[in-house]
């Protein structure tokens, strides 16, 4: 679907969360490393309770959900302390984290505040043991330039990362405490982004600026993006937890499509004079002898409601792989129940006849839809009430909400947009005054600009304009320098191509190159520099390392079957040549061409083609000279 961004009036903003690579956590002296969950030394259980005022303005659905108290189970380690357990007051704000954040703020042309105050932001999903996230606003009023125009950077906050959710079982949610308290910067842009493409570029640019400090964490899960999207006639929707930069454009597009579709559905419903009946019927009797596993699992309890004039609406696709019915199902899921509707039935082992009887219970015509959930009465009723609220909302407007990014670029309902009044001062942490001298010092040591770096690369490594530009803007620029400084005999062009084009190609093939760490590249180039394999084999080695990141490069070379031993290569070529002496005598020097094909069949990807060609030429010459 081609989108006319100007016409729909897209306004999008980004919020980027990046872990900092500090020695200790933001409010305690624990290390900022993640631990194998098996290393957990102890666990404890907690509940959280928040008053209405602490939650700010929340909608009915969220309030319903809140009533349902969950148990949080926390796993602790030797590398976590009483601060993470919420058994001890936090220490003072980590100075190293403040310095890194200030550096990022200056790179984004922001204005740091003079005195930093740590706040408590209420979060009661258990991801913070204390029931709030500690966060401090460090700087405001920045900007970055993009080809499509200026994007204002409104805020940079320094905050603590949340505990990692590891399992959910019924009413209990398990979290791991190793991640809790790792410093993060949260960078928020104004809603100045006008196209999906621009959104992706802004995210990339921000990511690169962060990495240019050399003081942020890298690897999967160390950076997370949230996007807020609104279009004219639509609503402000925040999509959380995008881990993959490549998906950002896709997510923006899909959200626009979703909102446009919902507007269409709303108009269609109003035209049809559709309406919601609040009568919840017990349909269990219909399923006395059902063969549906879903229903049998729920003890045969089925409850339903009738949506007049909704036939066909629930089955309408609004995002890749998601129908309007999926939106409703998100609400039922909050109560731990699955949802089914007549637009998709018969299915799930429910028969045509059972569907007919369901419809008959409500005197439903073919214009109507019936929505059912399989669960015991109390839970079923609460789930259906939440679904009905969402349906009624759909006839009025698109709801403002927080959504969760899904791996295919679509999104699912998560919770209502949080209200603004959820923050209060963290009295356990004293404010920090930003020293003007310190700020000047940081300012004087900022990483170099792209332009400067590009010129330097041209001079130092003899790169042409295109390649110098490419690598100086690439996130891997410092890795490039490191490799070039360590292995001077490697051609700069090859290293640049590997770190840019090769990675891009692998990414297109769907290889998760994000899993590669600096050490993988350094080791690969080290082996290459010592002629352990031919440059043609670089992609094969990187692919191998993505799948087996713990394997060393020399082991990888062996496993793939790359030939490092040039004597063996020479022998192989000599054998082929010796078996074709007649052919060589017949063809003379022109035999090299066809023989090259035969040799390459054996050695492709394992030895540099040029090297093979040279050896082959020599051997052929020998045969001819020998007569």
């Amino acid at each position, binding site marked *: 679907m081609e989108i006319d961004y100007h016409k729909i009036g897209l306004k999008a903003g980004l919020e980027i969360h990046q872990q900092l690579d500090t020695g200790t956590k933001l409010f305690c002296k624990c290390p900022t490393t993640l631990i194998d969950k098996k290393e957990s030394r102890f666990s*404890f*259980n*907690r*509940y*959280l*309770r*928040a*008053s209405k*005022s*602490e939650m700010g303005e929340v909608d009915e659905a969220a309030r319903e959900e809140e009533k349902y*108290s969950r*148990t949080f189970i926390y796993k602790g380690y030797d590398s976590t302390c*009483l601060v993470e*357990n*919420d*058994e*001890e*007051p936090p220490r003072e704000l980590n100075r190293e984290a403040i310095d890194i954040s200030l550096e990022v703020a200056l790179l984004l*042309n922001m*204005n740091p*505040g*003079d*005195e*930093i*105050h740590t*706040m*408590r*932001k*209420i979060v*009661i999903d258990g991801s913070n*043991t*204390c*029931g*709030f996230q500690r*966060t*401090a*606003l460090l700087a*405001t*009023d920045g900007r970055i330039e993009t080809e499509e125009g200026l994007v204002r950077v409104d*805020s940079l*906050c320094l905050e603590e990362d949340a505990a990692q959710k590891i399992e959910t079982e019924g009413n209990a949610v398990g979290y791991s405490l190793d991640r809790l308290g790792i410093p993060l910067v949260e960078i928020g842009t104004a809603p100045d982004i006008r196209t999906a493409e621009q959104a992706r570029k802004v995210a990339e640019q921000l990511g690169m600026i962060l990495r240019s400090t050399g003081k942020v964490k890298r690897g999967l899960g160390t950076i997370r993006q949230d996007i807020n999207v609104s279009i004219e006639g639509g609503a402000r929707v925040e999509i959380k937890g995008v881990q993959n930069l490549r998906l950002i454009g896709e997510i923006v597009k899909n959200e626009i499509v979703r909102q446009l579709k919902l507007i269409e559905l709303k108009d269609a419903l109003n035209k049809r004079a559709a309406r919601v009946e609040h009568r919840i019927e017990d349909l269990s009797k219909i399923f006395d002898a059902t063969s549906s596993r879903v229903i049998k699992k729920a003890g045969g309890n089925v409850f339903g409601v009738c949506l007049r004039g909704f036939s066909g609406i629930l089955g309408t696709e609004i995002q890749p792989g998601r129908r309007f019915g999926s939106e409703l199902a998100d609400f039922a899921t909050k109560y731990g129940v699955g949802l089914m509707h007549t637009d998709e039935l018969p299915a799930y082992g429910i028969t045509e006849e059972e569907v007919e009887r369901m419809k008959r219970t409500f005197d439903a015509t073919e214009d109507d839809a019936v929505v059912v959930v399989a669960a015991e009465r109390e839970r079923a009723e609460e789930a259906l009430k939440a679904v009905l609220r969402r349906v009624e909302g759909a006839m009025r407007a698109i709801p403002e909400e927080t959504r969760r990014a899904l791996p295919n670029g679509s999104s699912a309902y998560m919770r209502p947009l949080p209200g*603004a*009044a*959820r*923050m*209060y*001062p963290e*009295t356990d942490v004293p*404010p920090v*005054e930003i020293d003007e001298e310190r700020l000047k010092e940081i300012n004087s040591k900022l990483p170099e600009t792209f332009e400067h770096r590009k010129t330097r690369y041209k001079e130092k490594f003899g790169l042409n304009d295109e390649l110098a530009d490419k690598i100086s803007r690439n996130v891997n620029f410092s890795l490039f320098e490191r490799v070039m400084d360590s292995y001077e005999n490697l051609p700069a062009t090859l290293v640049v191509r590997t770190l840019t084009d090769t990675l891009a190609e692998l990414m297109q093939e769907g290889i998760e190159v994000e899993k590669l760490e600096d050490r993988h590249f350094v080791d690969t180039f080290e082996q290459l520099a010592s002629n352990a394999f031919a440059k043609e084999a670089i992609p094969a080695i990187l692919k191998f390392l993505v799948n087996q990141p713990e394997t060393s490069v020399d082991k990888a070379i062996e496993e793939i079957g790359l030939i490092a031993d040039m004597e063996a290569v020479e022998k192989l070529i000599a054998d082929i040549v010796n078996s074709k002496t007649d052919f060589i005598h017949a063809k003379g020097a022109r035999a090299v061409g066809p023989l090259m094909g035969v040799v390459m069949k054996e050695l492709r990807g394992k030895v540099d083609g040029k090297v093979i060609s040279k050896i082959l030429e020599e051997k052929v010459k020998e045969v001819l000279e020998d007569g």
Partner: protein
Amino acid sequence: MMEIREGDRIRIKKETDSGVVVYEGIVMPTASRNIVIKLDSGYNIGIRPGNAEVEVIDREEVLTDEKKERGGVLNKTRKEDLPILAILSTGGTIASKVDYRTGAVSPQFSTEDILEAIPELGEIGNIRGKVIYSILSENMRAEYWSKLAAEVYNEIKNGAEGIIVTHGTDTMGYTAAALSFMVQTPVPVVLVGSQRSADRPSSDAAMNAICAAKVACSDLAEVVVVMHGSTSDEFCFIHRGTKVRKMHTSARDAFQPINDIPIGKVYYDTNDIEKIRLEFFSAYMKRGEKELELRAKLEEKCCLIKFYPGADPAILELFIAQGYKGIVLEGTGLGHVSAEWIPGVASAIKRGIPVVMTSQCIYGTICDRVYDTGRDLLHAGIIEGEDMLPETALVKLMCVLGQTTDMEEVRRLMHENIAGEIKGRSMKGCIF
């Protein structure tokens, strides 16, 4: 610069290298020399007044302090089948409210506010609240114990079927011991507090209070402390008021029984208060077994001195010169002070000032018969504090001296188990 006041909505224009930055928000209280404002985003930020142009854009008239109710109110709808529980507040908060505009946290003491924060309490009993003190527990004084004991006594006399005393945790052990000696009670008297402040969703205040209320409805008629039994929100321990000590600065399970086991345990359930159940581990005084009696008189001029290697014996003399009437020593090991101290101890006792020996080991029983120094102390007339906590021994000595100054009677009462303070039978007993 125009005078600004807390609560004003102001605009600050600040000159920077890259142009003018504008901040707008509400002026917050601060101790710093910078202007601290709450931005519309909810964040607070401080701005140096230099180079800044400040403009007041809105000034709200400050509302006077919200009504501070001083208690005595029953639940609006009294439930006949539920017992009457009196919540006496001394300053430890089990409920608090946050003003998001100013960020101020205000502890809540009125019955309504407590019930709003912890509605479960209203399902456990007919709650009536009363504020006795609003002080931090480190500011507690012996004279306040007397008043509190009298209030507890009055509440019981006026029909309360269970008493809950909310208390700051720092000195809760002392108050628990004091009430144990001063009030002979026919109903439960439960002290409760929180280690993590009530203004956080993870606070232990609500669970502790709910468990305390359950204990206050039980048939246990003793002064007890009910606090978290572990770091998890799973159960609370019921500690005997004379045998419990705060053993951690911040953890939820800071309160530990010393030289004893807890009386029992309260298994908590957040979703269903009906499922909260009590389990008892040892014998206890039953409801109605003892007559209500108040012994509120205290000799406040008692002190607790910790001995350390090389401690100057003149320390003892200083206290006596200051008019102290009773001394508890926290000695080393089985109950020792250096030989230098012995003449001072003997002289104090000769002058009618009882000296009680306890141990800084905290765990174990005093036994001065083992080593020479001990035997010399006994000879000097020291009163062995048995397996009493030093703090409990101090409070007990105040109570005993409130009743008698006769040295032999003091000695007898200090050795007598009055409120569970002397177990008498320790598992790792005195070695002969």
